[in-house]
């Protein structure tokens, strides 16, 4: 029995290929896979950053070929051809220990584009759920994925891998939360428009900020944005009064000269009673004069400042990744132990059956010679069962324990030889 993983991710395949192979409904593919003789179990993980199939097989070569054909024929949508050479350049394959380790790393977000991002755990859980529901995930992969979820939990709680924000928008929110106690009672002013500034505003809204005002050079654009965010629209002429009232200013508006100057801010600050003002300038060229950061209550961050903090946080996450890798290794060893211990099951089962048949035969022979009423027969039966269980308890426990290690095979062979299990098997055969 072997575990094989075949897949591609954001490092090995371009986005357009990942898009072409993305699977929206994995159930039919999984059912087709487990219908093949050589594949016992299968799970398919398909996200925007990866497409991976992991299977349990008794025939490695046949399973490899099957998985490659699944990628070439089943996953690619009918209208778009994916050539073999294109696939070969992007696919990676992991087997047994490497495959298990890879699943643990994926669920723990160590293999993600943004290390430590939380979505991948949910996506992996979904993949496992779908595979279980359609009968494709069995005891081995089911256990592997449960182990992966536990590993991800350990990585998140024992390292700081997910602690620091790594997107510009989240860094802006993080900063706002270092300045303000509660964003829900704060007001934001959006000056201009753009994808980045709207992402930052959206993140702030997710963290409680409700009251928003929008100011723009053109009233129509201001109205449009205001309608989108449930905000009030303003022109740029009353900027001083607007800034005097808000707590967060997000600015990204065209033009070579800064809009937020020291003079304008000084006028606005005069009526703010020293309340802090957080200014996020995402404009290029900058829309806020850097000198406004020298004004006491003003905290100015431009796009470079936010990106620099995001980079530092990403570096910190990478450093935490080293600690996370040691957790992965430890968890991988545990799973390997469990998997190795599975080989003891046939021997233990065989041993129990053998001893039980002896017990039953000998009991019947004895009962034929003596006459006992029902209660006495039950008592003797219970007595023999108890003796057998007590005799078997120590060797069976020892076999289970030792089977978790590679060298434990010696104990299994010894048990089979001592109890004549192989002889019996050959007799039966």
């Amino acid at each position: 029995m072997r575990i094989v993983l075949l897949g591609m991710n954001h490092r090995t395949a371009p986005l357009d290929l990942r898009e072409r192979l993305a699977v929206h409904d994995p159930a039919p593919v999984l059912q087709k896979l487990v219908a093949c003789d050589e594949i016992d179990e299968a799970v398919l993980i398909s996200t925007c950053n990866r497409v991976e199939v992991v299977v349990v097989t008794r025939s490695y070569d046949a399973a490899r070929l099957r998985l490659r054909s699944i990628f070439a024929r089943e996953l690619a949508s009918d209208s778009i051809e994916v050539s073999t050479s294109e696939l070969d350049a992007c696919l990676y394959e992991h087997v047994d220990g490497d495959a298990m380790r890879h699943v643990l790393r994926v669920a723990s977000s160590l293999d993600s584009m943004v290390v430590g991002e939380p979505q991948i755990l949910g996506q992996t859980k979904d993949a496992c759920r779908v595979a279980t529901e359609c009968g494709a995930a069995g005891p081995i992969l089911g256990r592997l994925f449960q182990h992966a979820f536990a590993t991800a939990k350990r990585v998140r709680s024992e390292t700081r891998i997910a602690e620091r924000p790594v997107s510009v928008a989240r860094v802006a929110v993080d900063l706002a939360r270092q300045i303000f106690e509660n964003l829900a009672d704060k007001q934001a002013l959006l000056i201009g428009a753009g994808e980045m500034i709207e992402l930052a505003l959206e993140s702030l809204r997710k963290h409680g900020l409700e009251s928003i005002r929008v100011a723009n050079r053109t009233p129509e654009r201001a109205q449009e944005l205001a309608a989108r965010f449930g905000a009030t629209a303003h022109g740029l002429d009353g900027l001083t009064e607007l800034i005097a009232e808000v707590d967060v200013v997000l600015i990204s508006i065209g033009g070579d000269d800064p809009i937020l100057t020291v003079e304008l801010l000084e006028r606005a600050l005069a009526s703010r009673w020293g309340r802090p003002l957080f200014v996020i300038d995402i404009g290029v060229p900058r829309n806020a004069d850097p000198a406004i950061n020298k004004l006491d209550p003003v905290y100015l961050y431009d796009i470079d400042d936010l990106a620099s903090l995001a980079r530092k946080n990403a570096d910190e996450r990478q450093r935490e990744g080293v600690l996370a890798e040691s957790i992965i290794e430890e968890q991988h060893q545990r799973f390997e132990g469990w998997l190795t211990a599975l080989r003891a099951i046939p021997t233990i089962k065989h041993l129990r059956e053998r001893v039980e048949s002896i017990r039953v035969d000998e009991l019947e022979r004895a009962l034929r010679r003596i006459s006992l009423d029902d209660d006495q027969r039950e008592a003797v039966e219970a007595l023999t069962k108890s003796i057998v269980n007590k005799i078997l308890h120590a060797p069976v426990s020892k076999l289970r324990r030792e089977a978790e290690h590679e060298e434990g095979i010696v104990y299994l062979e010894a048990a089979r030889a001592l109890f004549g299990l192989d002889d019996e098997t050959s007799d039966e055969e």
Partner: protein
Amino acid sequence: MSIHLHQLAAALYLLAGLVAWTGMALRSARLERGSVWLLAGAALAHLGAFATLHSLEPPPPLTDLPAAVSFMACAGTIFFLAMLRRLRLDGLTVLVAPAAFVGAFFAALQLPEAEPAVVAGSGSWPHAHVLLASMGLAFLGVSGMAGMLFLAEHRRIKAKRPIDAGFPLPTLEALDLANRVSLAVGFPLLTLGVIAGMIWVQKSQGVVWSGSVHEIWSVIAWTVYAVLAGARFGASQGSRQAAASAVGGFAFLCFAVIGVGLLT
């Protein structure tokens, strides 16, 4: 018994401080929370120490410096813990716990030998003076500590440095609010303490103003705080200036009340 509880309180304050600093160094939010619980335990032991002291017959007065400083540490800690119910100030434990330790430790060392100066015929005024002034000082101390952390965080955010601690430090807004509330409660208490002190002197010596060094420095410190409170609440002082004023004001107050007491 009282001295043992004082020693226990001092030990718990020290432990709370060590746990808070370790939490900051190891970036552990769990240790940060643990330090707050230890601080609460220390405050309970400290209250127990004063309750035991009060049950003695006759109860020793709190007019000697070690007892007053110890009471100040206890009052400041309880005030800080009360503020924690409304504001996320847990990170301030890194300053409050060591300061409370110094106060309790000072008392634990000196209380048995302290010879309180009881002024005959002055009634409850000595107690009123010590209780009110110590509480005022304690709350202004919390204001100073909030100001200290505010200045550090203000500088860090202005300099665009990533957060140093692994657990969330108090926000600038929370620190400013703590500073404001502490000053709003502490300054009136200090004022009442100064008035109670004057009545005490008047009752015992027949004059309102005896001209002692303690009196002179106390009035100077009160005047300094009156100016600071006026600037904060009357002249719309900004948060950073208010934080700097709180730090400077408390340093001066400590010198004027405790430092001068020790030197003379």
